[in-house]
C-alpha cells in the first residue's frame, strides 16, 4: 500500500510517500504506526507520540483504531490547520 506523510511527519521521516507491504496482523493505523516506528530513527521520532497523529484511509479521515482493511493508500499527518 501507498503510505503518505504530511507536514512535520513528512519532514521527520524525510519522504512524502512510499510503497510498503506491512505484514499480516497490522490491522489498524495504530498497528501500522508501531510497525513503521521500527523502520528507523526518523520514523521513531515522527511517531514518538501518537497523540498528535491523525490518519486518512483511502482519503477519508479515520480514527487510529479503525480497521485498516486493504486500502490503496493511507496518509499520516498532524491535526489540520487550514482556512
Amino acid at each position, binding site marked *: 500500500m501507498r503510505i503518505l506523510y*504530511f507536514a512535520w511527519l513528512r519532514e521527520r521521516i524525510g519522504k512524502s510517500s512510499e510503497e510498503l507491504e506491512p505484514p499480516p496482523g497490522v490491522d489498524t493505523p495504530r498497528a501500522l504506526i508501531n510497525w513503521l516506528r521500527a523502520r528507523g530513527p526518523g520514523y521513531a521520532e515522527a511517531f514518538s507520540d501518537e497523540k498528535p497523529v491523525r490518519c*486518512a484511509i483511502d482519503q*477519508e*479521515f479515520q480514527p487510529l483504531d479503525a480497521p485498516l482493511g486493504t486500502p490503496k493508500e493511507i496518509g499520516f499527518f498532524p*491535526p*489540520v490547520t*487550514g*482556512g
Partner: protein
Amino acid sequence: MRLVAVQEQDFDAGALLARLNSAGTGGMASFTGIVRQLPGGGLRALRLEHYPGMTEKALERLADEAEARWELTGCVIIHRVGRLEPGQNIVFAAASSAHRGDALAATAYLIDQLKTRAPFWKAEEMESGATHWVEAREADDEATAAWSETANATNLPRGQGRL
C-alpha cells in the same frame, strides 16, 4: 453554480462574486481569509501544504452539505496553497441564495467546517529564518462541533460571534 478549487495562484473575490451573481440570486455572502501578521510581528510568510486528491474531495463534500442544508443558488470554496505573505489571500468561501440568512449561514458553515475537515497544514516562516508548524486550535474544533448540535437545523450555532 459550484466552484471548488485548491490552487497556488491568487483569486479575485470581486470576479468570484460576479460569477455567483450571474447564476441568478437575491444575495451573496462571502468570507475571505487573509494571512495575518503575528501579534509580535516577525512572520515572513505562511507555507501551506495539503493532501492532493483528498482535499478536493473534502471541499466538495462541504459544498454538498451546505447545498443540502440551505437553499443555495451557488457555492464557492477556493483555498490557496504554497507560500503566502501577510496581507495575501488564503481562502474564499461564498454562497448565494434567495434568502440572505441562508447565504450568510452557509458561508459561516463552509469556513468553520473547512478549518477542521480539510487536509491543509500551515507552517510559519519567520524573519529569523526559523520555521514552525502551526498547531490546531481548540476553538476551531468547537466551531465545527457547534454545527452538529444543530444537525437538522439551519440555524447558525450560538457562540459564533467569538470563534
